[in-house]
């Protein structure tokens, strides 16, 4: 069997690449160790609210432009672009206007707003806050709906999806990728994308390529449905949250230092982190005190050594593309990365400047 491209890893990066290539009429085989969207891409908070610093800025700006169109193409994925409010707590070290001007200087919309305005936007908010930063182009989406619709659309366009499949070999000859062998069969192709999140290192190793990413387990919880009080994203006091169309609150935060995220590949929920999320949410939104938490879960994100993504079409072996390290805002920017890689496979170039994301930057730092 042969294909125009083989994509290993059906998260947002791999699935978007697959989807875009299929729309251009390319023949794609998507391989996943479980199901597309079973990992971080199907477990995250659904925020399209990228970071603005360093190598994230360009990807972030593009994500905010891409998502309204992408969401419309996918159908009902509960996309709502009502903006995001970053709440600055009374004891935060920086002021709302500093955060706002920092975002604006990097090409993002941001307006400093006072405490009263914050509370009018989010009624359950605490009183003793400094104010917040309103970014009107940030959006939310149901990540599971995105993954389901994109997978279905890809299949409808003829993509072969091999789920529950492990890649056993990446064939390289004369420094060129030839194809892959998997537990579901073999495929020949001159283009192989490894977009396997925390597993990228072990898969890339099959082609003799060293990719190091650090896994981090992140926890969230969901509450019962409450009457809709906002369509905005919100963040502050170390946590992030949104309210689903059906009213449930999805909230997450990093756990405390004594509950280390470590290099975990499990999906266990821990009491200290669950309690920290609850404590922070209680402080941020006392108005939600009586709302019941129904379920907590964990997902695994991955970071590169310098905290910025790895997106690289390698020279050796030629045809191997690596994409990982999408970090804590990966769902939103992952779609941008997927589009860029699809362009790269199709046309040989992409208008996204990939220089900041080269894999080789790590090797040179070790010399």
């Amino acid at each position, binding site marked *: 069997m042969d294909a125009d491209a083989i994509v290993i890893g059906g998260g947002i990066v791999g699935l978007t690449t697959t989807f875009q290539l299929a729309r251009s009429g390319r023949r794609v085989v998507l391989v996943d160790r479980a199901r597309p969207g*079973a990992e971080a891409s199907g477990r995250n908070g659904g925020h399209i609210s990228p970071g603005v610093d360093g190598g994230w800025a360009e990807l972030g700006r593009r994500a905010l432009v891409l998502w309204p169109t992408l969401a419309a193409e996918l159908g009902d994925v509960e996309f709502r672009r009502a903006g995001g409010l970053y709440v600055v707590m009374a004891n935060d070290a920086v002021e709302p206007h500093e955060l706002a001007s920092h975002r604006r200087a990097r090409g993002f919309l941001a307006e400093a707003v006072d405490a009263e305005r914050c509370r009018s936007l989010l009624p359950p908010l605490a009183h003793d806050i400094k104010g917040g930063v309103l970014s009107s182009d940030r959006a939310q989406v149901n990540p599971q709906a995105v*993954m389901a619709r994109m997978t279905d659309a890809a299949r409808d366009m003829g993509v072969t999806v091999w789920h529950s499949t492990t890649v056993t070999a990446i064939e390289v000859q004369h420094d060129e990728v030839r194809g892959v062998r998997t537990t579901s069969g073999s495929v020949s192709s001159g283009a192989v994308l490894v977009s396997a999140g925390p597993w990228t290192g072990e898969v890339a190793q099959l082609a003799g390529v060293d990719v190091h990413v650090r896994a981090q387990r992140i926890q969230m919880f969901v509450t019962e449905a409450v009457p809709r009080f906002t369509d905005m994203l919100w963040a502050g006091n170390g946590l992030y949250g949104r309210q689903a169309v059906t009213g449930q609150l999805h909230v997450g935060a990093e756990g405390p*230092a004594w509950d280390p995220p470590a290099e975990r590949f499990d999906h266990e929920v821990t*009491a*200290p982190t669950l309690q920290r999320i609850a*404590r922070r949410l209680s402080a941020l939104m006392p108005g939600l005190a009586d709302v019941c938490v129904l379920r*907590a879960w964990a997902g695994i994100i991955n970071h590169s050594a310098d905290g910025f993504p790895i997106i690289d079409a390698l020279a050796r072996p030629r045809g191997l593309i690596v994409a990982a390290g999408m970090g804590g805002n990966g769902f939103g920017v992952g779609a941008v990365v997927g589009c860029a890689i699809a362009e790269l496979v199709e046309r040989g170039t992409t208008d996204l400047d990939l220089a*900041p994301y080269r894999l080789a930057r790590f090797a040179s730092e070790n010399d």
Partner: protein
Amino acid sequence: MVVGGGRAGQDAARAAAERGASTLLLDEDPIAPALVGRNVPYWFGGLRPPRSRVADARLDDLAALADAGVDVLAGTSAWAVFADGTVGLFDGARTWLVRAGEVVLATGTVDLALPLPGWTLGGVFGACAALAMAERAGTLGVERLVVVGDGALARRVGDAAQSVGTEVVATVDGVRERVLEMRGAARVSSVIATSGGQRSEIVADGVCVAIGRQPATELAEIAGCALVSHGLLRGVRHDERGTTSRANIRVVGALADNDATAASARAFDAALGAIDLADGTTACACEEVSAGRLRDAIRVSDGDLDEAKRRTRVGMGPCQGRRCLPVAMSLIAHAYVRPSEGVARPRFRPPARPVPISALATEEDVAIPRSAPFAHAEERLIADAHADRVSPFAIARFDRRAEELQLRLATTGASEAEAEQLARALESEIRAAATRGE
């Protein structure tokens, strides 16, 4: 720690206290109205007890346990059991954690819901709910009851109902005699049943499904105990002492009775098989997912329940799949060839009971011992953030990593010089990261 104050839990607690172990027993009774309204842990189906209290017999038992040296916490649930033996407790107002050397789970069984047409009407409920209601509240709030099922469980329900003044107007075994439909507005008012080819309409304001029960495995699942499949149901794998795959966790009583679980699974499968499950019938009541939508999702997911869950939200509502997942598994099992260990079913995640945010927030925060070099580094970064030389978003990243490092320093008893070095290294890393790629 013993979770569950029924017979098996009491016995385990008494034995532990007699051995000289400091023993704590939790009993959830009386089941809070908030749980009743959410169909947790039983399928209450809209039954609203006018009052709920711990039954006198249970109170006497718990008092006797206290006399035997057991600390008894009534009205207290366990919302999680972690692999290290930490148990999360909830008393309705706050949560707290207790570390136990051994945890004994005596949480018994919960209801098995059948997706009969009209099953989401008020007044349609399960056997565990009926028995709990009769015992605790002294009434079912039902005048005319139809019981579905013909085993010992159905008979117990019939007896309990009659003892609290409810008339059992019909018993339908669920296989040879079947409920075709339940009718009513918000509450069931009549039941269409068939028996030997004869249809009849029975006036009833309550229907109790008493086909079988499933073990309440949620805490064992949360703790990571190995499970064992019994057809469409699953129990906890354990040895003759009840010890699970986690050496510090034991299961006792009905929870551990894998033979009874297997029997319930067979009865459940037979009863399900007798239902012509139309696409329009509700499969997941909490999330209002029809059987048709669930079937489509299962097909598209190629028989993967996790994926079907993500696609439809089946099992994600307040009852966390207690009522719908066995049915979902039945749809998968009959359409897909599965290995002998049964259909894979997602594990329960904490909390095992809905817990208010404010209650989860009550655990004490552990103080991080602060060290001066980190405070100074943070001050420098903040000053530079104000001067727009460093990203203000970097401060939170610094704080988070500084917290980890200071904790490590405190536990390893490192020197001032080491602290200084680590703080400066972290500061440099944060400064560099904020600008790289610009």
